[in-house]
């Protein structure tokens, strides 16, 4: 195929704005899938099948489109990750494109991810084709939303295409517009090879499969290559394209989008953003924009059944093959037993990992209250990174605690601005910018301590805006905060799982909430037990679990005797599973329940 007839693009959209359905229509117009194999949400289904180990999800599909100008174009449709923790990965997918289709639901209007993705596309210098989708919906307001979109990207409202992924209306016009407006790839096939890895996945049968855009030079099977950022050398096993199923090709040359099986063991050796070059004739410089995946949110993962610890370790090892952003280290909690402290890109990433562990590996997990990584400046002058409150050094040795801050963009109908501002204020957020996207919709920009976001900010945002608010965020560095570590003491012994780093103003609240909860959840003992919250040596809240007064079975006659013995034996076995905190015996379930309740603010 002639380079001039190649177009590489992404569909970018807020979640649920109809990307998958539109992709179905594009596949059909290009006859990419035989009629009998066509199903709704074709590409997403491939994803489900992949979970069952049948197919590797295509992150880029090659299609042939017979355009209205009579020529046949090669289209590369590149998928972008659909959620807010992965903006870096979205940016890499976009870097593999020459243009984007910005898809907006004609009923919903512009949302936070629409904007975030648009800004990423503009930053990447891509041609943007704005499109209104779902114009067939009775609730669609193409004129209003069209104006909103036109204002946003500074082009006349009339130039905005209107399509329906459902009925197929306007899709042909859209494809024609893609071939006329998006430029063909540039790049010299004879130059030193540079290929951008924009996605990387692990398959049980094929090993690591990377998705690449060849920017310069060429890649072919059996050639020796180097991943520049990780300095990994490998011999390529196979190169090919998805059309939409995996199809090996002889080589990929500058301008091509396809897959490479680089023959490496795990995705960490071929990470998103890295540059593949020729080992013998390497490029002088890698492609710009590589970032090492950096976990922002940390939480302890514990099996609810301690016997599942080895299973959890094995599951994390397997997941990590497929997830370069997931990090973990073993952790022992006196309250929860053996588990792992895991780092995630964000909250959604954490949810995805947890769900996969539970669903694909059949584990039952307890996730501790998520935390962020703090920078502790010590009086001695050195800086420690602490991502587990239990590891916080002695308060006396701390000069300053710095916490990570996120830049947050919220878009919502204007009637919700008041309640949103209230929410942001409660979360110590700092308003940076606010403007009207249209008469009805407002964009708010805040800087907010990441720790305040990771608990239930998104849920709160959704509930306060009745689902109309949307959110995008990205970490923007550290700032000093008035933070303290609150410890929870049981009979004077600290219980690690409940230590938390909180803002000074929230310390009392946190302490009171946790002590009350533990008082309710921990069964009475043979003696009075104090439950205290403390900052250093200062007690800020106290509850008492009164000593047991009755622990005897009322009735014990003939038939009851066996029953009583079995009951006592069962209780005795239960006692062995109790967690011992000093002299206090606590059923693990009580700790778990307290942590679950601790989720909400």
């Amino acid at each position, binding site marked *: 195929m002639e380079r001039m007839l190649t177009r590489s693009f992404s569909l970018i959209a807020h979640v649920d704005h109809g990307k998958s359905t539109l992709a179905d229509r594009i596949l059909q117009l290009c006859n990419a899938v035989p009629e009998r194999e066509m199903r709704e949400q074709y590409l997403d289904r491939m994803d489900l099948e992949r979970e069952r180990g049948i197919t590797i999800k295509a992150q880029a599909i090659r299609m042939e489109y017979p355009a209205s100008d009579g020529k046949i174009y090669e289209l590369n449709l590149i998928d972008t990750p659909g959620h807010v923790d992965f903006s870096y990965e979205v940016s890499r997918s976009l870097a593999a494109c020459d243009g984007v289709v910005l898809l907006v639901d004609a009923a919903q209007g512009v949302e936070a991810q629409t904007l975030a993705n648009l800004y990423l596309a503009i930053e990447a210098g891509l041609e943007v084709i704005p499109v209104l989708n779902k114009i067939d919906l009775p609730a669609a307001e193409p004129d209003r939303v069209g104006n909103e979109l036109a204002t946003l990207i500074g082009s006349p409202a009339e130039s905005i295409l209107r399509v329906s992924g459902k009925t197929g209306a306007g899709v042909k016009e859209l494809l024609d517009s893609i071939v006329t407006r998006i430029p063909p790839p540039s790049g010299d096939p004879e130059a030193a090879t540079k290929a951008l890895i924009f996605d990387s996945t692990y398959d049980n049968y094929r090993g690591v499969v990377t998705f690449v855009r060849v920017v310069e030079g060429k890649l072919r099977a059996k050639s020796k290559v180097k991943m520049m950022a990780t300095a990994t050398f490998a011999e390529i096993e196979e190169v090919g394209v998805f059309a939409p199923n995996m199809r090996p090709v002889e080589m990929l040359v500058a301008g091509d989008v396809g897959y490479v099986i680089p023959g490496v063991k795990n995705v960490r050796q071929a990470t998103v953003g890295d540059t593949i070059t020729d080992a013998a004739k390497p490029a002088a410089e890698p492609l710009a924009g590589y970032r090492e995946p950096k976990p922002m949110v940390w939480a302890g993962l514990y099996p609810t059944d301690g016997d599942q610890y080895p299973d959890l370790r094995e599951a994390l090892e397997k997941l990590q093959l497929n997830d370069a952003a997931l990090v973990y280290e073993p952790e022992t909690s006196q309250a929860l037993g053996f588990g792992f402290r895991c780092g995630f890109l964000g909250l959604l990433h954490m949810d995805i990992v947890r769900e996969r562990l539970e669903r694909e590996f059949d584990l039952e997990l307890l996730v501790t209250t998520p935390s962020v990584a703090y920078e502790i400046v010590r009086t001695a002058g050195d800086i420690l990174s602490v991502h587990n409150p239990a590891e916080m050094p002695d308060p006396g040795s701390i000069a300053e605690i710095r916490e990570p801050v996120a830049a947050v963009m919220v878009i919502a109908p204007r009637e919700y601005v008041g309640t949103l501002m209230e929410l942001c204020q409660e979360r110590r957020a700092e308003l940076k910018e606010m403007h009207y996207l249209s008469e009805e919709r407002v964009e708010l920009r805040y800087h907010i301590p990441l720790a305040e976001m990771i608990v239930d900010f998104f849920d709160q945002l959704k509930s306060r805006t009745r689902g109309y608010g949307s959110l995008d965020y990205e970490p923007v560095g550290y700032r000093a905060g008035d933070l303290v570590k609150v410890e929870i003491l049981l009979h004077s012994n600290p219980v690690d799982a409940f230590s938390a780093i909180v803002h000074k103003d929230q310390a009392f609240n946190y302490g009171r909430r946790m002590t009350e909860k533990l008082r309710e959840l921990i069964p009475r003992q*043979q003696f009075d037990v104090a439950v205290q919250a403390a900052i250093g040596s200062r007690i800020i809240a106290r509850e008492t679990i009164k000593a*047991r007064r009755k*622990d*005897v079975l*009322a009735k014990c006659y003939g038939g009851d005797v066996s029953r009583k013995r079995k009951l006592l034996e069962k*209780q005795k076995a239960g006692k062995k599973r109790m967690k011992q905190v000093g002299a206090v015996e606590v059923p693990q379930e009580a700790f778990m329940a307290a942590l679950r309740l601790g989720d909400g603010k």
Partner: protein
Amino acid sequence: MTTAARGVYVHIPFCIVRCGYCDFNAYAGMDELADPYVDALLKEIDDRADGGVVTTVFFGGGTPTQLPPEQLGRIVQRIRERFEVTSGVEITVEANPETLEPGVASGLLENGFNRISIGVQSTSAKVLQQLERVHSSDRAIRALECAVAAGFERVNADLIYGTPGETMQEWRASLARVLATGVTHVSAYALTVEEGTPLSLKVARGDLPAPDEDDLADKYDLLVETLRDAGLERYEVSNFAREGHECMHNIGYWKGADYFGFGAGAHSHRAGRRSWNVRLPRTYIDRSPSVEDGFETLEPEQRRGEAAVLALRLAQGIRRKDFSQMWGSDPVELWPGPIAGGADGGILHVDDDTVRCTDKGFLLMDGVARELV
């Protein structure tokens, strides 16, 4: 310990209504099974009796007095024929207030019963309603008076405390009214929410609060004190009697004696072998006389642990010498940690002769018991 003690238990599973807290093997509306059930019972006695000594007999339920005294008398008679019943035998029948007419009380005496246990539960109308008992509080008191008047020398009143909503005053009043009738024995039980009962459903749904530990403990303290003042001493966790009026049949259970259990769901025990009959009356009748449903054989260690746990329920506690003779080791040597811990915690009193619960210990003994099983 009287090694010769041997009991017979007879289960009568019929009731007028099934109470919401009850998890016994009891059924309402099955009276038409009464005759075939008694036949099956007689057959089981014929089949299993070994002609050996029997020192106590206990008819429990359900409500034994759902059957006419003559029917019950037939069963007593059969036991007398098939066993060597001692002259001082104690023969107890459980009765509910609503079934205890004066004629019934004397009928029971005439048919061989010499001890009666009446399910009063409470004298508070509110509490009785909460427990779904059909009798009124006056009826309950009248039943006790009627039993005493008919000539029963040993009358027990069964009571339940800690029902949600019961006040301390109501509990005190129940105790006072019961004691005023001249009963010589009281069994008083903390309301226990048993799994699978309508009561447990109500608690699970949040319609009723679960019994409160502090409330139960306060009421227990009042119970012990009130009965002691009236001359009824605690001889077991939940049992109080004037001296010489203790229930010998139940003491047999706590001392590990052998006993035959006849009837649906009844348990038997013989030298470490514990067996039980099929639970459903209908099945019991159909399978007569092959009614055993299962059994367990206790290991010597289990028997030893059980013996200690059961003995601790008695005021006299574990008699160290007897225990050593029976099981080969002294309990203090066998369980040094738990017993020392119990003593330090004020739960156990330990001296050269006995290990027994302190006043406080009667409410907390399961903490130690758990270590002994």
